[in-house]
């Protein structure tokens, strides 16, 4: 383990991150909302800390191995999660504890979108902006990590998903160099965000809300600048809520697709490959059929006026399955079977290498194929049945990795539910809170249907851990707890 180099990388990372405080700082000064000091202090503290880590090791050079890669990736989220909480701690509004600040910051960076803050509408504008920005930064971090770094580490069969991008980019990386891949993905991400912001503005949002929500939409985060989330625009007669929700649905669906596909679309001017990609096809199919199911359920339960039901049904299906977590009505009042169905959908999540969370559609496809294979084998005992995705055989090694991932997901999930039950939460709250954090969804049911303010501190720490676990595809973090990892 090259601790020196790891600390150096971390130092650089912190210094880079500290510069991002400048944007909310400018926002704060411009709107004179009284939070500028918090951002200025955060900037100085982070910059100093980064420099302290960087200076002693600045001359150190060594090649990083895959073990270092695990450590850096994990530290990246943990350190930024902690450091990112500084503005919440230092600012006078919101007046929240250190635990809550870190929860909020981790929830932002992991694009979960679970909040502990009540009365969001009353927060200073710069803090609101900062929350959205955290999600946006987290989102690009995930895409780059998912497409450029996790395949190198070979986590949970993630090497699979580049295989399906058609044409000359079917290699494991989009461009030959990780740096170039990251840049290209950042560009795609930027374009999507810009398009989303413009669309929100055209749909009637204020410029600030449009930018803020574009950040959390494209990153599939789910933070909003309003307590009622997207419901604010639906209930407020000043806005055309239908348009705004439709824009949200559209861009959430897009962001839930593999960013490698967007890259191909942008640089090779092709749209057909979206439908050629079997993961994208299954994703859209599940989204579509679930939306129909939810809408029918809502109609039968007479939850909404018939005219509103379709929009509500589609919006929540998209928002929750992709693990975005925007809401437009109180899920707590919904029929229980539909609410649980939606949370269940969040386990499927979005496509691999998107900003969404969950187990990912691609993995689910392979699990389903293996189940079908077992059935075929029962009927034809001598049959040779390879697992195929999009008519392309999948390496047995990848299928194994995915089963391992699935098993770990279940174990981790139930372990966390047990811990939360022990911490004093009721079953619905515990179950839904773990689903919502492990899948990086956001809102749960029961006590955590709107926010996580009321649950005990211990539970919040557990959920922070859960969010990072989910975001890092479990194994990246779990591997650090194995003694073998630390042995030379």
């Amino acid at each position, binding site marked *: 383990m090259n601790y020196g180099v790891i600390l150096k990388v971390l130092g650089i990372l912190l210094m880079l991150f500290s510069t991002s405080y400048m944007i909310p700082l400018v926002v704060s000064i411009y709107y004179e909302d009284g939070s500028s000091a918090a951002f200025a202090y955060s900037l100085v503290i982070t910059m100093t800390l980064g420099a302290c880590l960087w200076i002693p090791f600045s001359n150190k050079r060594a090649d990083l191995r895959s073990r270092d890669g695990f450590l850096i990736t994990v530290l990246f989220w943990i350190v930024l999660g902690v450091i990112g909480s500084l503005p919440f701690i230092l600012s006078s509004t919101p007046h929240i504890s250190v635990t809550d600040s870190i929860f909020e910051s981790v929830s932002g960076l992991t694009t979960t979108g679970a909040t502990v803050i009540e009365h969001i509408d009353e927060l200073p504008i710069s803090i609101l902006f900062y929350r959205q920005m955290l999600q946006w930064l987290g989102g690009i971090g995930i895409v780059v990590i998912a497409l450029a770094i996790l395949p190198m580490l070979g986590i949970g069969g993630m090497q699979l998903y580049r295989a399906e991008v058609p044409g000359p980019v079917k290699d494991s990386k989009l461009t030959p160099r990780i740096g170039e891949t990251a840049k290209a993905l950042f560009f795609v991400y930027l374009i999507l965000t810009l398009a989303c912001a413009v669309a929100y503005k055209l749909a009637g949002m204020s410029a600030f809300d449009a930018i803020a929500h574009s950040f959390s939409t494209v990153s599939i985060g789910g933070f909003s600048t309003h307590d009622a989330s997207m419901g604010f625009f639906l209930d407020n007669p000043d806005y055309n809520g239908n348009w705004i929700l439709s824009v949200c649905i559209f861009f959430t669906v897009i962001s839930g697709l593999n960013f490698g596909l967007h890259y191909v679309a942008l640089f090779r001017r092709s749209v057909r490959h979206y439908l050629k990609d079997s993961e994208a096809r299954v994703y859209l199919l599940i989204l579509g059929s679930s939306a129909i199911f939810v809408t029918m359920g809502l109609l039968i339960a007479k939850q909404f006026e018939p005219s509103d039901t379709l929009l509500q049904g589609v919006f929540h299906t998209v928002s929750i399955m992709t693990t975005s977590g925007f809401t437009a009505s109180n899920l707590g009042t919904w029929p229980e079977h539909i609410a649980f169905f939606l949370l269940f959908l969040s386990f499927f999540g979005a496509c691999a290498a998107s900003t969404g969370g969950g187990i990912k559609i691609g993995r689910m496809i392979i699990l389903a194929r293996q189940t079908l294979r077992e059935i075929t084998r029962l009927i034809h005992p*001598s049959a040779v049945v390879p697992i195929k995705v999009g008519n392309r055989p999948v390496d047995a090694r990848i299928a194994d990795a995915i089963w391992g991932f699935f098993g770990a997901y279940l174990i981790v999930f139930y372990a966390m539910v047990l811990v939360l039950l022990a911490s004093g939460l009721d079953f619905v709250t515990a179950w839904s809170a773990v689903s919502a954090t492990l899948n990086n969804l956001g809102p749960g049911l029961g006590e955590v249907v709107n926010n996580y303010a009321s649950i005990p501190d211990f539970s919040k720490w557990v959920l922070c851990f859960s969010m990072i676990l989910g975001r890092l595809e479990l194994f990246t973090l779990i591997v650090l707890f194995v003694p073998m990892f630390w042995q030379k």
Partner: protein
Amino acid sequence: MKIVILGAGQVGSTLATNLANEANDVTLIDSREDLLTELRDRLDIQTVCGWGSHPEVLEQAGIEDADMLVAVTNQDETNMVACQIAHSLYRTPHKIARIRSSGYTNDRIRDKLFSPEHLPVDVTITPEQLVTDHLVQLIHQPGALQVMDFADNQVQLVAVKAQPDAPMAGSQIKDLVSRLGKVKTRVAAIYRHNRPIMAEGDTRIESGDEVFFLASKKHIRNVISELANKEKPYRRIVIAGGGNIGFRLAQALEYDYQVKLIEMDPKRCEYLAERLHKTIVLNGSSSDQELLKEESIESVDVFLALTNNDAANIISSMLAKRLKAGKVITLINNPVYVDLMQSSGDIDIAVAPSQITTSALLSFVRRGDTVKVHSLRRGAAEAMEIVAHGDSKSSKVVGRRINEVKLPHGATIGGIVRNVDNKQKVLMGHGDLVIEDEDHLIIFVADKEHIRKIEQLFSVSVSFF
């Protein structure tokens, strides 16, 4: 004609046999002396031992004044290089290469690659593909023993075995024609007890007869149902042997039929299963009774044994037949076995790959106006498509009625494909039909000895110029 053949394997030796018998100067090149010795003893050909693509070896074989090079070794690359060398160094006019890998012959690159300025191959031939196409046609036309395409697949010559309980068994040919009414057909030949008999209007069709008839593609089904039992279209197919042919056939059929493919080698099974999308690939021996039973062989419509081992194919076919498989088709390379099996009745159709390949090659090798050749009945008979040229003065056929044309014994004009207003029209070969310039005639020749005479008949006399 002077022809150099590269490769003395199955394809090369069968071709050499055919061509030598047709009075061509054949030189055969191969790197295996033993193969050549055997053929040299049997045939009137010249042989050269050496690496086929080496210029020295080609020169030794007399490539300089050869009219044609036929490169049919089992290596695509050798064949292509030989054609290139023949073209660049010796200006050989016609070059045919056997290309097995679909990597070279897929539609996207084929036309770009094989052209005089790039890879100068006039005709590429893929035996596995030809055999596969042949098998696909047999499966598409239930009841047929052999299906041959003519005139860009507009007309087919079909061989069928008359069944005792078929509607037309025991009745005369003219009854068949009148019964079918609008469906135009012509019986080109009948084989009874393996001997050809003249097919006149009053000839009776007896059960067990092998009837060759000509009809346009869409009518084949109607005619078959009159002569054989009305067979339902096939649905369930089992292929034994996942070699090149088995794989290609499964690929061609898997979307229209329920296909199961049995292969011995586990590695090959994986390869096949990864590339076939609907076929069920089974690992095991095709002569394993338990495996066949488990896969309910009794409800299978067609069982095809397609390994490259004749004996294994025959055994598994006989087993499948015993286990009540519907129709059994067997690939047999050795011509002796073909006769043996076909007459024994244990298998329904024996397919000889070398004969199919030779038919295709012969179409290219024959000089003049012969467009297409199908070798029939183990090479004894032939069906050919030939173009008539000239006028009543210069030609011995144009401007005459069919029954005026002096065809050798055993040859019948089955039909004519005529270009009328830029549309291909199929006319059945009735005696009073007048042959015109540019007509494509489909002729059935019961005795191959007469091929030369027919070709002479169609040659245009000098006074034409």
